[in-house]
Protein backbone atom coordinates (compact mmCIF):
# COMPACT_ATOMS: atom_id res chain seq x y z
CA UNK A 1 0.00 0.00 0.00
CA UNK A 2 2.67 2.44 0.99
CA UNK A 3 4.56 2.15 -2.26
CA UNK A 4 1.50 2.51 -4.46
CA UNK A 5 0.63 5.98 -5.61
CA UNK A 6 -3.12 6.12 -5.45
CA UNK A 7 -5.14 8.66 -7.44
CA UNK A 8 -6.22 10.10 -4.09
CA UNK A 9 -2.67 11.15 -3.30
CA UNK A 10 -2.25 12.79 -6.69
CA UNK A 11 -5.38 14.85 -6.40
CA UNK A 12 -5.68 16.27 -2.92
CA UNK A 13 -9.16 17.56 -3.68
CA UNK A 14 -10.43 14.03 -4.10
CA UNK A 15 -10.39 13.57 -0.36
CA UNK A 16 -13.10 16.12 0.27
CA UNK A 17 -15.15 14.75 -2.56
CA UNK A 18 -14.97 11.33 -0.98
CA UNK A 19 -16.51 12.56 2.27
CA UNK A 20 -19.90 11.03 3.08
CA UNK A 21 -22.36 12.92 0.88
CA UNK A 22 -25.00 13.31 3.58
CA UNK A 23 -22.74 15.30 5.87
CA UNK A 24 -21.67 17.61 3.03
CA UNK A 25 -25.17 18.33 1.94
CA UNK A 26 -26.29 19.24 5.40
CA UNK A 27 -23.54 21.74 6.18
CA UNK A 28 -22.64 23.54 2.99
CA UNK A 29 -25.96 24.74 1.55
CA UNK A 30 -26.90 26.68 4.67
CA UNK A 31 -23.75 28.80 4.59
CA UNK A 32 -23.79 29.24 0.83
CA UNK A 33 -27.46 30.17 0.79
CA UNK A 34 -26.91 32.81 3.44
CA UNK A 35 -23.95 34.11 1.48
CA UNK A 36 -25.95 34.10 -1.74
CA UNK A 37 -28.70 36.22 -0.21
CA UNK A 38 -26.16 38.56 1.32
CA UNK A 39 -24.37 38.85 -2.00
CA UNK A 40 -27.52 39.73 -3.93
CA UNK A 41 -28.51 42.35 -1.37
CA UNK A 42 -25.00 43.81 -1.31
CA UNK A 43 -24.83 43.97 -5.10
CA UNK A 44 -28.18 45.75 -5.28
CA UNK A 45 -27.02 48.29 -2.70
CA UNK A 46 -23.77 48.85 -4.63
CA UNK A 47 -25.48 49.30 -7.98
CA UNK A 48 -28.04 51.67 -6.46
CA UNK A 49 -25.48 53.82 -4.72
CA UNK A 50 -23.52 54.25 -7.92
CA UNK A 51 -26.53 54.85 -10.16
CA UNK A 52 -28.95 56.78 -7.94
CA UNK A 53 -26.97 60.07 -7.91
CA UNK A 54 -26.70 59.96 -11.71
CA UNK A 55 -30.43 59.28 -11.96
CA UNK A 56 -31.02 62.17 -9.59
CA UNK A 57 -29.06 64.50 -11.83
CA UNK A 58 -31.06 63.33 -14.84
CA UNK A 59 -34.42 63.77 -13.05
CA UNK A 60 -33.49 67.25 -11.87
CA UNK A 61 -32.57 68.23 -15.40
CA UNK A 62 -36.17 67.50 -16.40
CA UNK A 63 -37.68 69.62 -13.62
CA UNK A 64 -38.49 73.30 -13.48
CA UNK A 65 -36.58 75.22 -10.83
CA UNK A 66 -39.80 75.50 -8.83
CA UNK A 67 -40.15 71.71 -8.78
CA UNK A 68 -36.52 71.22 -7.76
CA UNK A 69 -37.20 73.33 -4.66
CA UNK A 70 -40.33 71.32 -3.84
CA UNK A 71 -39.51 68.26 -1.70
CA UNK A 72 -42.89 66.70 -2.44
CA UNK A 73 -42.02 66.51 -6.13
CA UNK A 74 -38.93 64.38 -5.65
CA UNK A 75 -40.05 61.59 -7.92
CA UNK A 76 -43.45 62.61 -9.22
CA UNK A 77 -43.40 65.74 -11.32
CA UNK A 78 -44.25 66.94 -14.79
CA UNK A 79 -41.14 66.54 -16.95
CA UNK A 80 -40.11 69.47 -19.04
CA UNK A 81 -37.46 69.92 -21.69
CA UNK A 82 -37.18 73.63 -20.93
CA UNK A 83 -33.74 73.23 -19.34
CA UNK A 84 -32.38 71.53 -22.40
CA UNK A 85 -33.83 74.24 -24.59
CA UNK A 86 -32.00 76.79 -22.41
CA UNK A 87 -28.76 74.84 -22.57
CA UNK A 88 -28.71 73.92 -26.23
CA UNK A 89 -30.62 76.89 -27.60
CA UNK A 90 -30.01 80.04 -25.62
CA UNK A 91 -26.54 79.17 -24.30
CA UNK A 92 -25.30 77.80 -27.59
CA UNK A 93 -24.01 74.60 -26.05
CA UNK A 94 -23.74 72.83 -29.38
CA UNK A 95 -20.66 74.90 -30.16
CA UNK A 96 -19.12 73.86 -26.82
CA UNK A 97 -19.96 70.25 -27.64
CA UNK A 98 -18.07 70.73 -30.89
CA UNK A 99 -15.10 72.29 -29.07
CA UNK A 100 -14.89 69.43 -26.61
CA UNK A 101 -15.17 66.89 -29.37
CA UNK A 102 -12.64 68.54 -31.64
CA UNK A 103 -10.04 69.07 -28.91
CA UNK A 104 -10.42 65.51 -27.59
CA UNK A 105 -10.35 64.04 -31.09
CA UNK A 106 -7.36 66.02 -32.37
CA UNK A 107 -5.29 65.55 -29.22
CA UNK A 108 -5.98 61.81 -29.24
CA UNK A 109 -5.13 61.47 -32.94
CA UNK A 110 -1.90 63.46 -32.68
CA UNK A 111 -0.87 61.58 -29.55
CA UNK A 112 -1.44 58.30 -31.39
CA UNK A 113 0.80 59.38 -34.25
CA UNK A 114 3.73 60.11 -32.00
CA UNK A 115 2.81 57.75 -29.17
CA UNK A 116 2.34 54.42 -30.96
CA UNK A 117 5.85 54.21 -32.51
CA UNK A 118 7.33 55.50 -29.27
CA UNK A 119 5.53 52.84 -27.22
CA UNK A 120 6.67 50.18 -29.68
CA UNK A 121 10.28 51.28 -29.57
CA UNK A 122 10.29 51.68 -25.79
CA UNK A 123 8.85 48.21 -25.34
CA UNK A 124 11.05 46.40 -27.87
CA UNK A 125 14.29 48.08 -26.87
CA UNK A 126 13.42 48.15 -23.17
CA UNK A 127 13.96 51.92 -22.98
CA UNK A 128 12.73 52.06 -19.39
CA UNK A 129 14.34 55.38 -18.59
CA UNK A 130 12.86 57.12 -21.63
CA UNK A 131 9.50 55.58 -20.80
CA UNK A 132 9.78 56.98 -17.31
CA UNK A 133 10.25 60.46 -18.77
CA UNK A 134 7.01 60.17 -20.75
CA UNK A 135 5.19 58.71 -17.75
CA UNK A 136 6.38 61.67 -15.68
CA UNK A 137 3.69 63.56 -17.52
CA UNK A 138 1.13 61.51 -15.61
CA UNK A 139 2.67 62.34 -12.26
CA UNK A 140 3.36 66.06 -12.62
CA UNK A 141 0.58 68.32 -11.33
CA UNK A 142 -0.94 70.11 -14.30
CA UNK A 143 -0.67 73.53 -12.66
CA UNK A 144 3.12 73.39 -12.71
CA UNK A 145 2.98 73.24 -16.49
CA UNK A 146 0.19 75.74 -16.88
CA UNK A 147 2.17 78.68 -15.55
CA UNK A 148 5.04 78.37 -18.06
CA UNK A 149 2.65 77.48 -20.87
CA UNK A 150 0.55 80.48 -20.07
CA UNK A 151 3.70 82.63 -20.03
CA UNK A 152 4.87 81.40 -23.44
CA UNK A 153 1.56 81.09 -25.21
CA UNK A 154 0.21 84.44 -24.11
CA UNK A 155 3.40 86.06 -25.39
CA UNK A 156 2.77 84.29 -28.69
CA UNK A 157 -0.89 85.44 -28.51
CA UNK A 158 -2.00 81.86 -28.80
CA UNK A 159 -4.06 81.61 -25.61
CA UNK A 160 -7.71 81.07 -26.50
CA UNK A 161 -6.98 79.18 -29.71
CA UNK A 162 -7.57 75.53 -30.47
CA UNK A 163 -3.86 74.82 -31.01
CA UNK A 164 -2.94 75.49 -27.39
CA UNK A 165 -5.88 73.48 -26.11
CA UNK A 166 -5.04 70.52 -28.32
CA UNK A 167 -1.37 70.65 -27.31
CA UNK A 168 -2.25 70.82 -23.63
CA UNK A 169 -4.69 67.91 -23.89
CA UNK A 170 -2.03 65.84 -25.63
CA UNK A 171 -0.29 66.05 -22.30
CA UNK A 172 -3.20 64.00 -20.92
CA UNK A 173 -3.50 61.65 -23.88
CA UNK A 174 0.12 60.87 -24.72
CA UNK A 175 1.28 59.26 -21.45
CA UNK A 176 -1.90 57.17 -21.34
CA UNK A 177 -1.32 55.92 -24.88
CA UNK A 178 2.36 55.17 -24.30
CA UNK A 179 1.62 53.43 -21.00
CA UNK A 180 -1.18 51.23 -22.33
CA UNK A 181 0.54 50.33 -25.61
CA UNK A 182 3.87 49.59 -23.97
CA UNK A 183 2.29 46.90 -21.83
CA UNK A 184 0.44 45.70 -24.94
CA UNK A 185 3.66 45.35 -26.96
CA UNK A 186 5.44 43.81 -23.98
CA UNK A 187 3.04 40.89 -24.11
CA UNK A 188 3.02 40.58 -27.91
CA UNK A 189 5.23 37.75 -29.22
CA UNK A 190 8.23 38.66 -31.34
CA UNK A 191 7.83 35.64 -33.63
CA UNK A 192 5.42 37.28 -36.06
CA UNK A 193 7.75 40.16 -36.71
CA UNK A 194 10.65 37.76 -37.15
CA UNK A 195 8.61 35.79 -39.67
CA UNK A 196 7.94 38.99 -41.58
CA UNK A 197 11.64 39.76 -41.54
CA UNK A 198 12.41 36.34 -42.96
CA UNK A 199 9.90 37.04 -45.71
CA UNK A 200 12.01 40.04 -46.72
CA UNK A 201 10.40 42.99 -44.95
CA UNK A 202 12.58 45.63 -43.29
CA UNK A 203 12.21 46.32 -39.56
CA UNK A 204 10.02 49.33 -40.21
CA UNK A 205 8.11 47.41 -42.88
CA UNK A 206 7.44 44.62 -40.40
CA UNK A 207 6.20 47.16 -37.85
CA UNK A 208 3.90 48.87 -40.35
CA UNK A 209 2.54 45.78 -42.08
CA UNK A 210 2.48 43.21 -39.28
CA UNK A 211 2.76 44.70 -35.80
CA UNK A 212 0.55 47.72 -36.35
CA UNK A 213 -2.46 45.81 -37.76
CA UNK A 214 -2.09 43.27 -34.97
CA UNK A 215 -2.12 45.94 -32.27
CA UNK A 216 -5.40 47.54 -33.38
CA UNK A 217 -7.19 46.31 -30.24
CA UNK A 218 -4.56 47.94 -28.05
CA UNK A 219 -4.69 51.14 -30.08
CA UNK A 220 -8.49 51.21 -29.77
CA UNK A 221 -8.22 50.74 -26.01
CA UNK A 222 -5.68 53.54 -25.69
CA UNK A 223 -7.62 55.91 -27.95
CA UNK A 224 -10.91 55.43 -26.12
CA UNK A 225 -9.34 56.16 -22.76
CA UNK A 226 -7.35 59.10 -24.12
CA UNK A 227 -10.52 60.53 -25.64
CA UNK A 228 -12.48 60.14 -22.40
CA UNK A 229 -9.80 61.71 -20.23
CA UNK A 230 -9.32 64.56 -22.66
CA UNK A 231 -13.08 65.16 -22.83
CA UNK A 232 -13.27 65.22 -19.03
CA UNK A 233 -10.27 67.46 -18.55
CA UNK A 234 -11.06 70.75 -16.92
CA UNK A 235 -7.98 72.54 -15.69
CA UNK A 236 -6.19 73.20 -18.97
CA UNK A 237 -9.26 74.51 -20.72
CA UNK A 238 -10.11 76.66 -17.69
CA UNK A 239 -6.92 78.67 -18.21
CA UNK A 240 -6.14 78.29 -21.89
CA UNK A 241 -9.52 78.48 -23.64
CA UNK A 242 -11.18 81.62 -24.91
CA UNK A 243 -14.87 82.54 -25.01
CA UNK A 244 -15.29 80.73 -28.35
CA UNK A 245 -13.10 77.72 -27.64
CA UNK A 246 -14.47 76.79 -24.20
CA UNK A 247 -14.90 73.08 -23.71
CA UNK A 248 -17.98 71.65 -22.00
CA UNK A 249 -16.59 71.22 -18.46
CA UNK A 250 -15.67 74.91 -18.43
CA UNK A 251 -18.91 76.01 -20.07
CA UNK A 252 -20.90 74.39 -17.24
CA UNK A 253 -19.81 77.25 -15.02
CA UNK A 254 -22.00 79.60 -17.07
CA UNK A 255 -24.85 78.33 -14.89
CA UNK A 256 -23.16 79.13 -11.59
CA UNK A 257 -23.54 82.79 -10.79
CA UNK A 258 -22.49 84.42 -7.53
CA UNK A 259 -26.02 85.26 -6.50
CA UNK A 260 -27.91 82.18 -7.57
CA UNK A 261 -27.65 78.92 -9.37
CA UNK A 262 -29.95 77.88 -12.20
CA UNK A 263 -30.17 74.30 -10.92
CA UNK A 264 -32.30 72.98 -13.77
CA UNK A 265 -29.98 74.45 -16.39
CA UNK A 266 -26.90 73.33 -14.48
CA UNK A 267 -28.12 69.74 -14.28
CA UNK A 268 -29.14 69.73 -17.95
CA UNK A 269 -25.68 71.05 -18.86
CA UNK A 270 -24.07 68.37 -16.70
CA UNK A 271 -26.16 65.70 -18.42
CA UNK A 272 -25.10 67.05 -21.81
CA UNK A 273 -21.41 66.66 -20.86
CA UNK A 274 -21.79 63.21 -19.36
CA UNK A 275 -24.16 61.51 -21.81
CA UNK A 276 -21.76 61.25 -24.80
CA UNK A 277 -19.02 59.79 -22.64
CA UNK A 278 -21.38 57.32 -20.98
CA UNK A 279 -22.71 56.15 -24.32
CA UNK A 280 -19.13 55.57 -25.50
CA UNK A 281 -18.42 53.72 -22.24
CA UNK A 282 -21.46 51.46 -22.65
CA UNK A 283 -20.34 50.29 -26.06
CA UNK A 284 -16.63 50.01 -25.34
CA UNK A 285 -16.76 48.69 -21.78
CA UNK A 286 -14.35 45.84 -22.53
CA UNK A 287 -11.71 48.18 -23.94
CA UNK A 288 -11.99 50.64 -21.07
CA UNK A 289 -11.53 47.88 -18.53
CA UNK A 290 -8.52 46.44 -20.33
CA UNK A 291 -7.00 49.91 -20.65
CA UNK A 292 -7.48 50.76 -16.98
CA UNK A 293 -5.94 47.48 -15.90
CA UNK A 294 -3.05 47.58 -18.39
CA UNK A 295 0.16 46.73 -16.63
CA UNK A 296 -1.62 46.30 -13.30
CA UNK A 297 -1.79 42.53 -13.11
CA UNK A 298 1.56 41.42 -14.40
CA UNK A 299 4.40 42.48 -12.13
Amino acid at each position, binding site marked *: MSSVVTPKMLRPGAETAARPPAQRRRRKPLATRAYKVFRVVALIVIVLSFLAP*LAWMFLASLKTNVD*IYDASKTLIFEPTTANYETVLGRNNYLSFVFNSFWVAFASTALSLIIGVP*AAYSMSRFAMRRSALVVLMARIIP*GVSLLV*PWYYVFSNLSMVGGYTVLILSHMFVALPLIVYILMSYYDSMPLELEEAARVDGLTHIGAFLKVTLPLSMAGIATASILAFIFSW*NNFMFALVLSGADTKTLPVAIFNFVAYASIDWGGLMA*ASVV*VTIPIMVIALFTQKYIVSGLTAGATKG
Partner: protein
Amino acid sequence: MTVASLPQKSAWKAYSDWANNHRKWLFAAPAMAFVAILIIFPLAWTLYLSLTDASGSVRAESEFIGFANYTEVLTDTDRFWPAVARTFIFTGAALLVQMVLGMCIALLLWRPFKGEKWVRVAILLPLVATPVAVGMMWRLIFDPNIGFANQALAWFGIPAQPWLSGQDTALATVIFIDIWQWTPMVVIILLAGLTSLSEEPDEAARIDGANAWQRFKFITVPLMMPTIIVAILLRSIDALKTFDLLYATKGRGGGSFNEVETLNVYAYGLSFDYNDYGLSSTVLIIFFLIIIAAMWVLTRRRKDVQK
Protein backbone atom coordinates in the same frame (compact mmCIF):
# COMPACT_ATOMS: atom_id res chain seq x y z
CA MET B 1 16.57 53.78 -67.98
CA THR B 2 18.38 51.33 -65.75
CA VAL B 3 21.34 53.68 -65.53
CA ALA B 4 19.25 56.63 -64.40
CA SER B 5 17.18 54.83 -61.80
CA LEU B 6 20.01 52.92 -60.21
CA PRO B 7 21.66 55.66 -58.09
CA GLN B 8 18.22 56.90 -57.02
CA LYS B 9 17.28 53.47 -55.86
CA SER B 10 20.42 53.09 -53.83
CA ALA B 11 19.87 56.50 -52.28
CA TRP B 12 16.44 55.34 -51.15
CA LYS B 13 17.96 52.12 -49.95
CA ALA B 14 20.63 53.97 -48.04
CA TYR B 15 17.97 56.11 -46.44
CA SER B 16 15.85 53.10 -45.66
CA ASP B 17 18.81 51.28 -44.13
CA TRP B 18 19.66 54.28 -42.05
CA ALA B 19 16.06 54.55 -40.84
CA ASN B 20 15.91 50.86 -40.02
CA ASN B 21 19.16 50.92 -38.14
CA HIS B 22 18.16 53.97 -36.15
CA ARG B 23 14.52 52.99 -35.68
CA LYS B 24 14.89 52.82 -31.94
CA TRP B 25 15.37 56.55 -31.60
CA LEU B 26 13.50 57.50 -34.78
CA PHE B 27 10.33 55.99 -33.33
CA ALA B 28 10.77 57.41 -29.88
CA ALA B 29 12.08 60.85 -30.87
CA PRO B 30 8.82 62.69 -31.66
CA ALA B 31 7.20 61.72 -28.37
CA MET B 32 10.39 62.43 -26.45
CA ALA B 33 10.74 65.82 -28.12
CA PHE B 34 7.14 66.65 -27.30
CA VAL B 35 7.64 65.73 -23.68
CA ALA B 36 10.91 67.64 -23.52
CA ILE B 37 9.42 70.82 -24.97
CA LEU B 38 6.10 70.78 -23.13
CA ILE B 39 7.10 69.24 -19.84
CA ILE B 40 10.79 69.32 -19.03
CA PHE B 41 11.32 72.86 -20.25
CA PRO B 42 8.27 74.20 -18.35
CA LEU B 43 9.40 72.36 -15.24
CA ALA B 44 12.83 73.93 -15.49
CA TRP B 45 11.14 77.28 -15.94
CA THR B 46 8.96 76.70 -12.88
CA LEU B 47 12.12 75.98 -10.94
CA TYR B 48 13.61 79.25 -12.19
CA LEU B 49 10.43 81.23 -11.47
CA SER B 50 10.40 79.91 -7.93
CA LEU B 51 13.64 81.81 -7.37
CA THR B 52 12.26 85.10 -8.69
CA ASP B 53 9.61 87.58 -7.65
CA ALA B 54 7.66 87.19 -10.91
CA SER B 55 4.13 88.53 -10.45
CA GLY B 56 1.46 90.70 -12.00
CA SER B 57 1.54 90.55 -15.78
CA VAL B 58 3.26 87.72 -17.61
CA ARG B 59 5.24 90.35 -19.52
CA ALA B 60 6.46 92.16 -16.40
CA GLU B 61 10.13 92.13 -15.47
CA SER B 62 11.11 89.91 -12.60
CA GLU B 63 14.09 89.83 -10.30
CA PHE B 64 16.15 86.96 -8.96
CA ILE B 65 15.56 86.73 -5.22
CA GLY B 66 17.14 83.41 -4.32
CA PHE B 67 15.34 81.30 -1.76
CA ALA B 68 13.18 84.09 -0.34
CA ASN B 69 10.04 82.47 -1.76
CA TYR B 70 10.91 79.19 -0.11
CA THR B 71 11.33 80.78 3.32
CA GLU B 72 8.08 82.66 2.82
CA VAL B 73 6.16 79.53 1.81
CA LEU B 74 7.65 77.21 4.39
CA THR B 75 6.92 79.61 7.24
CA ASP B 76 3.38 80.29 6.04
CA THR B 77 1.13 78.62 8.61
CA ASP B 78 -1.90 80.49 7.34
CA ARG B 79 -2.41 78.99 3.90
CA PHE B 80 0.49 76.72 2.97
CA TRP B 81 0.69 74.23 5.86
CA PRO B 82 -3.07 73.86 6.20
CA ALA B 83 -3.13 73.15 2.45
CA VAL B 84 -0.44 70.48 2.91
CA ALA B 85 -2.46 68.93 5.71
CA ARG B 86 -5.65 68.98 3.65
CA THR B 87 -3.86 67.40 0.69
CA PHE B 88 -2.75 64.52 2.88
CA ILE B 89 -6.08 64.17 4.69
CA PHE B 90 -7.95 64.18 1.39
CA THR B 91 -5.62 61.69 -0.28
CA GLY B 92 -5.17 59.45 2.75
CA ALA B 93 -8.84 59.23 3.71
CA ALA B 94 -10.09 58.81 0.15
CA LEU B 95 -7.42 56.22 -0.62
CA LEU B 96 -8.05 54.19 2.53
CA VAL B 97 -11.81 53.97 2.03
CA GLN B 98 -11.44 53.34 -1.69
CA MET B 99 -9.05 50.45 -1.13
CA VAL B 100 -11.15 48.77 1.57
CA LEU B 101 -14.45 49.32 -0.20
CA GLY B 102 -12.89 48.48 -3.56
CA MET B 103 -11.56 45.20 -2.23
CA CYS B 104 -14.94 44.27 -0.73
CA ILE B 105 -16.77 45.01 -3.98
CA ALA B 106 -14.14 43.22 -6.06
CA LEU B 107 -14.49 40.12 -3.87
CA LEU B 108 -18.28 40.25 -4.25
CA LEU B 109 -17.94 40.41 -8.03
CA TRP B 110 -15.17 37.83 -8.22
CA ARG B 111 -17.17 34.66 -8.87
CA PRO B 112 -19.51 34.68 -11.87
CA PHE B 113 -23.20 35.39 -11.31
CA LYS B 114 -26.30 36.24 -13.28
CA GLY B 115 -26.49 39.88 -14.38
CA GLU B 116 -22.76 40.35 -13.87
CA LYS B 117 -22.55 42.42 -17.03
CA TRP B 118 -25.05 45.01 -15.76
CA VAL B 119 -23.37 45.39 -12.41
CA ARG B 120 -20.09 46.04 -14.16
CA VAL B 121 -21.64 48.71 -16.37
CA ALA B 122 -23.12 50.40 -13.30
CA ILE B 123 -19.70 50.43 -11.70
CA LEU B 124 -18.04 51.88 -14.78
CA LEU B 125 -20.37 54.86 -15.10
CA PRO B 126 -19.17 57.03 -12.16
CA LEU B 127 -15.61 56.45 -13.29
CA VAL B 128 -16.09 57.84 -16.79
CA ALA B 129 -18.42 60.67 -15.79
CA THR B 130 -16.94 64.16 -16.17
CA PRO B 131 -15.66 65.20 -12.71
CA VAL B 132 -16.97 68.74 -13.04
CA ALA B 133 -20.47 67.43 -13.82
CA VAL B 134 -20.14 64.99 -10.92
CA GLY B 135 -19.24 67.90 -8.65
CA MET B 136 -22.30 69.87 -9.80
CA MET B 137 -24.52 66.83 -9.34
CA TRP B 138 -23.41 66.36 -5.72
CA ARG B 139 -23.73 70.08 -5.11
CA LEU B 140 -27.44 69.76 -5.79
CA ILE B 141 -27.77 66.57 -3.72
CA PHE B 142 -25.87 68.08 -0.80
CA ASP B 143 -27.56 71.47 -0.98
CA PRO B 144 -28.57 72.24 2.64
CA ASN B 145 -32.03 73.53 1.72
CA ILE B 146 -33.18 71.65 -1.35
CA GLY B 147 -30.80 68.69 -1.53
CA PHE B 148 -31.85 65.08 -1.29
CA ALA B 149 -29.20 64.29 1.34
CA ASN B 150 -30.92 66.32 4.06
CA GLN B 151 -34.32 65.10 2.91
CA ALA B 152 -33.10 61.54 3.45
CA LEU B 153 -31.67 62.42 6.87
CA ALA B 154 -35.03 63.89 7.85
CA TRP B 155 -36.72 60.50 7.26
CA PHE B 156 -34.53 59.09 10.01
CA GLY B 157 -35.04 62.09 12.23
CA ILE B 158 -31.46 63.30 11.87
CA PRO B 159 -31.09 67.09 11.79
CA ALA B 160 -30.03 68.73 8.53
CA GLN B 161 -26.31 68.99 7.86
CA PRO B 162 -24.52 71.84 6.08
CA TRP B 163 -22.45 69.36 3.98
CA LEU B 164 -20.41 71.25 1.38
CA SER B 165 -21.20 74.67 2.83
CA GLY B 166 -20.13 73.81 6.37
CA GLN B 167 -16.70 74.89 7.42
CA ASP B 168 -16.07 71.59 9.22
CA THR B 169 -18.02 69.26 6.96
CA ALA B 170 -16.87 70.43 3.51
CA LEU B 171 -13.63 68.45 3.39
CA ALA B 172 -15.33 65.24 4.52
CA THR B 173 -18.03 65.77 1.91
CA VAL B 174 -15.58 66.19 -0.99
CA ILE B 175 -13.74 63.09 0.23
CA PHE B 176 -17.06 61.25 0.06
CA ILE B 177 -17.60 62.44 -3.52
CA ASP B 178 -14.11 61.35 -4.51
CA ILE B 179 -14.81 57.93 -3.00
CA TRP B 180 -18.05 57.66 -4.96
CA GLN B 181 -16.35 58.48 -8.22
CA TRP B 182 -13.08 56.56 -7.91
CA THR B 183 -13.85 53.40 -5.93
CA PRO B 184 -14.91 51.81 -9.24
CA MET B 185 -11.38 52.32 -10.56
CA VAL B 186 -9.98 50.35 -7.62
CA VAL B 187 -12.64 47.67 -8.10
CA ILE B 188 -11.75 47.25 -11.77
CA ILE B 189 -8.02 46.97 -11.12
CA LEU B 190 -8.38 44.58 -8.17
CA LEU B 191 -10.94 42.47 -10.02
CA ALA B 192 -8.48 42.05 -12.89
CA GLY B 193 -5.90 40.94 -10.34
CA LEU B 194 -8.30 38.50 -8.67
CA THR B 195 -9.34 36.90 -11.95
CA SER B 196 -5.72 36.31 -12.90
CA LEU B 197 -4.97 34.46 -9.63
CA SER B 198 -4.57 30.72 -9.94
CA GLU B 199 -7.03 28.59 -7.98
CA GLU B 200 -4.56 26.12 -6.52
CA PRO B 201 -3.21 27.98 -3.44
CA ASP B 202 -6.74 28.90 -2.37
CA GLU B 203 -7.93 25.35 -2.95
CA ALA B 204 -4.99 23.89 -1.01
CA ALA B 205 -5.68 26.18 1.95
CA ARG B 206 -9.35 25.23 1.88
CA ILE B 207 -8.41 21.57 2.12
CA ASP B 208 -6.11 22.32 5.01
CA GLY B 209 -9.15 23.71 6.76
CA ALA B 210 -8.57 27.45 6.48
CA ASN B 211 -11.75 29.51 6.74
CA ALA B 212 -12.71 32.25 4.31
CA TRP B 213 -11.10 35.03 6.33
CA GLN B 214 -7.84 33.10 6.79
CA ARG B 215 -7.70 32.29 3.10
CA PHE B 216 -8.28 35.93 2.24
CA LYS B 217 -5.67 37.19 4.67
CA PHE B 218 -2.93 34.61 4.11
CA ILE B 219 -3.46 33.60 0.48
CA THR B 220 -5.38 36.19 -1.53
CA VAL B 221 -3.91 39.39 -0.11
CA PRO B 222 -0.24 38.35 -0.35
CA LEU B 223 -0.75 37.10 -3.90
CA MET B 224 -2.61 40.28 -4.79
CA MET B 225 -0.01 42.60 -3.25
CA PRO B 226 1.57 43.74 -6.55
CA THR B 227 -1.86 44.61 -7.95
CA ILE B 228 -2.91 46.31 -4.72
CA ILE B 229 0.18 48.50 -4.85
CA VAL B 230 -0.49 49.44 -8.48
CA ALA B 231 -4.00 50.47 -7.48
CA ILE B 232 -2.64 52.54 -4.58
CA LEU B 233 -0.04 54.09 -6.86
CA LEU B 234 -2.50 55.09 -9.58
CA ARG B 235 -5.12 56.36 -7.16
CA SER B 236 -2.73 58.34 -5.01
CA ILE B 237 -1.24 60.11 -8.04
CA ASP B 238 -4.70 61.25 -9.09
CA ALA B 239 -5.96 61.97 -5.59
CA LEU B 240 -2.98 64.18 -4.75
CA LYS B 241 -3.63 66.19 -7.91
CA THR B 242 -7.43 66.44 -7.57
CA PHE B 243 -8.54 69.82 -8.85
CA ASP B 244 -11.71 69.74 -10.92
CA LEU B 245 -13.91 68.23 -8.21
CA LEU B 246 -12.73 70.74 -5.61
CA TYR B 247 -13.07 73.69 -7.96
CA ALA B 248 -16.53 72.59 -9.12
CA THR B 249 -17.90 72.14 -5.62
CA LYS B 250 -16.23 74.98 -3.72
CA GLY B 251 -14.92 77.39 -6.36
CA ARG B 252 -11.80 79.49 -6.04
CA GLY B 253 -9.43 79.01 -3.14
CA GLY B 254 -11.35 75.97 -1.93
CA GLY B 255 -14.27 78.00 -0.57
CA SER B 256 -14.47 81.27 1.30
CA PHE B 257 -12.66 79.81 4.34
CA ASN B 258 -10.31 77.70 2.18
CA GLU B 259 -12.09 74.63 3.61
CA VAL B 260 -10.99 72.31 0.81
CA GLU B 261 -7.90 74.16 -0.41
CA THR B 262 -5.29 71.53 -1.24
CA LEU B 263 -1.81 72.28 -2.59
CA ASN B 264 -3.00 72.02 -6.16
CA VAL B 265 -5.89 74.43 -5.59
CA TYR B 266 -3.62 76.78 -3.63
CA ALA B 267 -1.00 76.85 -6.39
CA TYR B 268 -3.69 77.44 -8.99
CA GLY B 269 -5.08 80.34 -7.02
CA LEU B 270 -1.65 81.91 -6.53
CA SER B 271 -1.02 81.72 -10.26
CA PHE B 272 -4.28 82.65 -11.85
CA ASP B 273 -6.21 84.57 -9.19
CA TYR B 274 -3.34 86.52 -7.60
CA ASN B 275 -0.88 86.31 -10.54
CA ASP B 276 1.88 85.64 -8.05
CA TYR B 277 3.88 83.35 -10.31
CA GLY B 278 7.06 83.27 -8.24
CA LEU B 279 5.30 82.16 -5.07
CA SER B 280 3.07 79.69 -6.86
CA SER B 281 6.10 78.13 -8.60
CA THR B 282 7.66 77.64 -5.20
CA VAL B 283 4.55 75.87 -3.91
CA LEU B 284 4.51 73.73 -7.04
CA ILE B 285 8.14 72.70 -6.71
CA ILE B 286 7.54 71.65 -3.10
CA PHE B 287 4.34 69.86 -4.13
CA PHE B 288 6.20 68.12 -6.92
CA LEU B 289 8.90 66.93 -4.52
CA ILE B 290 6.22 65.56 -2.19
CA ILE B 291 4.63 63.63 -5.06
CA ILE B 292 7.97 62.24 -6.24
CA ALA B 293 8.79 61.14 -2.70
CA ALA B 294 5.43 59.40 -2.34
CA MET B 295 5.87 57.64 -5.69
CA TRP B 296 9.39 56.60 -4.82
CA VAL B 297 8.28 55.01 -1.56
CA LEU B 298 5.44 53.17 -3.28
CA THR B 299 7.52 51.83 -6.18
CA ARG B 300 10.17 50.73 -3.66
CA ARG B 301 7.49 48.84 -1.80
CA ARG B 302 6.31 47.30 -5.06
CA LYS B 303 9.77 46.02 -5.87
CA ASP B 304 10.14 44.54 -2.37
CA VAL B 305 6.85 42.72 -2.80
CA GLN B 306 7.87 41.31 -6.14
CA LYS B 307 11.01 39.76 -4.76
